[in-house]
């Protein structure tokens, strides 16, 4: 007992990488350098509105945002939904990799520090998932990420929205269907006031922006001041 305690003092277990289990070096988050290297971060040439990576670096907006405006003010995303990040988000769906919420949430936190002003938010919330899927999986990834982000910002994340009724999984639909599918799907939970509030909306993946856009609309309808969006991964802009 005493011996074990002493050993742990002198040789503590290090922090290991949440993906591969290797020891991590001098890195800010709980992933090793190799696993971080697998992520394609969005650094330059991204859409100024939604944060999606641009195919044409000379433009400032992606094709979507050029076509129509969104209800949210600004969206940013950490990386491209490919390679490492795609795999990590996939793993994150499983209970065994639940603790990925910490490093992935921290990545979002780092991007928030860079692109938003920390004092700018009154509320942090996330996109609610289907009751059915929560039953399947046991947790909502977006909520875990939002919690982690909230911890870093010293602001408690709260579930403000709920789904009106069962919607079909977005990923199974085509683009036009998605926009249609999501319409009117979110309502504000009872007793929630968002009037004049500035809200940070957290989600895992940003594809067309339909989901976060719809949620933003709900808040704005109830008098919210402005909505900003942070997501973990986004697709590439396709012309």
């Amino acid at each position, binding site marked *: 007992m005493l011996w074990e305690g002493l*050993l*742990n*003092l*002198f*040789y*503590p*277990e*290090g*922090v290991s990488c949440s993906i591969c289990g290797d*020891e991590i070096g*001098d*890195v*800010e*988050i709980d992933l090793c*350098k190799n696993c*971080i*290297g697998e992520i394609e*971060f969005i*650094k330059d040439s991204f859409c100024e509105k939604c944060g999606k990576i641009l195919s044409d670096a000379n433009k400032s907006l992606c094709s979507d945002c050029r076509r129509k405006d969104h209800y949210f003010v600004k969206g940013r995303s950490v990386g491209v939904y490919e390679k490492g990040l795609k795999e990590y988000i996939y793993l994150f769906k499983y209970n065994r990799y639940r603790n990925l919420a910490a490093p992935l949430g*921290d*990545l979002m*936190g*780092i*991007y928030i*520090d*860079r692109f938003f002003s920390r004092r700018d938010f009154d509320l942090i919330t996330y996109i609610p998932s289907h009751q059915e899927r929560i039953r399947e999986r046991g947790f909502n990834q977006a909520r875990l990420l939002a919690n982690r982000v909230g911890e*870093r910002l*010293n602001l408690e994340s709260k579930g403000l929205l709920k789904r009106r009724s069962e919607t079909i999984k977005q990923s199974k639909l085509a683009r036009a269907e998605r926009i249609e599918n999501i319409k009117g799907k979110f309502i504000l939970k009872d007793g929630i006031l968002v009037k004049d509030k500035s809200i940070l909306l957290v989600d895992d993946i940003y594809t067309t922006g339909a989901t976060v856009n719809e949620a933003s609309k709900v808040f704005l309808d109830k008098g919210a001041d402005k909505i900003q969006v942070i997501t973990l991964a986004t697709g590439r802009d396709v012309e």
Partner: protein
Amino acid sequence: MIDSKTRLPIDLKTRPLVLIFILMALGLISASYIGVNKSLINATKILVILLNLIGLYSYRRRLKWRRSIIYILIFLLSFIYLQQLELGWENEELGKVIGEEVSLRAKVVDVEVNDRGIEYLIEDIMVGDLMSKRRVLVSNWDGEKELSYGDIVEIDTQLRLAPTKTNPGSFSYRDYLKGENIYARANISRDRGLRVLANEGGIISKSIRELRRRMEISIDDYFLSPYSDILKALLLGRGNLPQDINDNFRELGLSHILVISGFHMGLISYFIALICKWLKLSKALTLLITISTLFFYLGLTGFGLSSVRAVILITLILIANYLGRRIDLYNILAGAGIIILLIAPYSLFKVSFQLSFIAVLSIAYLSPVIEKVLPIKKGKVKKILVATTAAQLGLLPVLAYYFYEVSFLGIVANPIIMPLVSVLIWLALPFLILATISFPFLAGILAFLMRGILVFVLELVNLLASNFSLSLLIGRPNILLIILYYLIIYYISKLLRPVVIPYAKDYSRYNKVLIASVILFLIVQFGFTFNRDLKLVFFDVGNGDAIYFETPNGRRGLIDAGVYGREVVSYLRSRGVRSLDFVFISHFHLDHAGGIVEVLDEFEVDKLFYPPTLIANQLEDTVLELALDREVSIYELIGGDKLKVDPIKINVLGPTYPLIQDSAANNNSLVFRFNYGDFKVLFTGDLELEGERRVLKEYEDYDLASTLLKVGHHGSVTSTSEKFLSSVGPKLAVIQVGDNTYGHPSPLVISNLKASGAKVLRNDQDGAITVFSDGRSYRYKTFK
């Protein structure tokens, strides 16, 4: 907060010992800073008991802050630990017989022969029925009796406490000895009063010492001095290097090479691992053999702090490898520190401890950054260059704090010298074994190679040291400056670290902290030079005069320098002063002008002033010759001369012709007055009654009134007549006096001074005395 997720060197989860070490160190530092206070110790003890109870409760309840209680306890216990030790030191039994002629019985633990005689370290001391666990350092001047370890001796002598620090910029010998558990010193001469009664040395300690002696003899068999001295330092930790070699190595920033360190220990472990592998021994046995050999070597070399650190560190690494545990360098380094502080808490205050730990820490933390910045390709040279630069950057403030100067030659010298010395040690360890067990042929071959390296290294070091001087005297930085320096280094290295996650570094925030630190650094370093004070320092140089002055415009000067000048020199070096504008010599007696020789040697002096003399004097010739040799302008001053050192006017009042015949040197002392507005200071050297009468007569209508009187001739009864005193009418009287057999200062003079309304300050009681004035008011500070 954002930083809660960046891993700091003090990360609790991955480096739990770092915080514990820091808390221990803080506890020890505050205990040493506050000084012994019995009621504080008792109060702290009660607090500890209370915290224990609260801690117990909070652990049972699993309260959130239960860990913090442990941390507070660690701090408080370290505090009590040192306070208790200090208390024991104050109540030391031997204190009752200090200064008395005693006959003491003790055991000899160490013997060192030097050019003045022999020094013995003794412990288990008995004086009558007093017993002490402390040690005493006995110097046997011109003695010849080489005692051996464990000898029980009887010595008739007188115990003395070593001097404490009484001057700014000096160091406390008493505190230094305390770190070695040495309570007092004693002198005997020519073996008189020294009797050996028996020998009670333990067999192990004796055989280790015998082995060391044999090894020293074998080194002497194969090598001549100074090569043998270097090898003894390098292999056996014997520190008796010739002074010039020591100086050269220090000047080149190579001192660490002459110390037994991690390299030796690593090499020994490597040799043992090879042998054990060859013998197909088990891992456990190999570990056991390695560790015991390292500790044996530690015993052989006398437990130097940097080798103790190295052995503990290597032992911790070997154990980790054996158990297959993860190693975090910062954590085990802190662990080694904790172990050393538990055994010997005073180590924290030793230069060698601080240098050793900060060097390892800097190399570990700064190397990756420097490696990235250095525009050199990979290779052995780059590795050494990176490590030296890292160590140099980390050690800079510590070196400046203790030695007042830093050398940048180390960065160049290390990559050349270090590989050579490494090869030397590679050869030397087998040589030592072969030579000691008498394998003359193999030992001879090794010695031949070693001699080649030694000659080359020493020649190279001499060449470098005598042709290049890149050492910079910067003086002792204050603590705030040191903290800011480390902050700046920390943030720069953070900025330069390689990027893995984009935007992970909050550049704007780092920059803000960095810029703030740099500005603060500059303000602290240069901001306080706008003072308009005249500053005078009356040093405690025993029975002698030495005064330093600094005018409001930053001109610097000395009036006398004591017998040796070392108090003055070390003060000026600690202030980073390299030159003096003026040196005044009151008269050519050793207790005033003796130290001027040292001063002229050490500093660039612009002008030297001295009085005319009646009788030829050896010291005068030496000083003036040296001054001319150093291209100092020399001026003889007599009464009536006037000098102006803006905004201070200096009036010379004496001596005047014809010079006084009686007690000529003293009575013809240079007498002069500083006039700074309303603040006037009269310097009288060793002026006696006759000289005072002359001054009074010559300047009948000259107003002698002064704010401060440097009392003539160390307060002797033959000076400071009541008439003279009433003309001067000082508010402050400084007597430069120390231990003497002349009866200085005279009680009559002191009572006269007090009766005249002057505040009397004495160097023997007050230590150094510093006086400041802005030309209107004044204030003073005593050092003790």
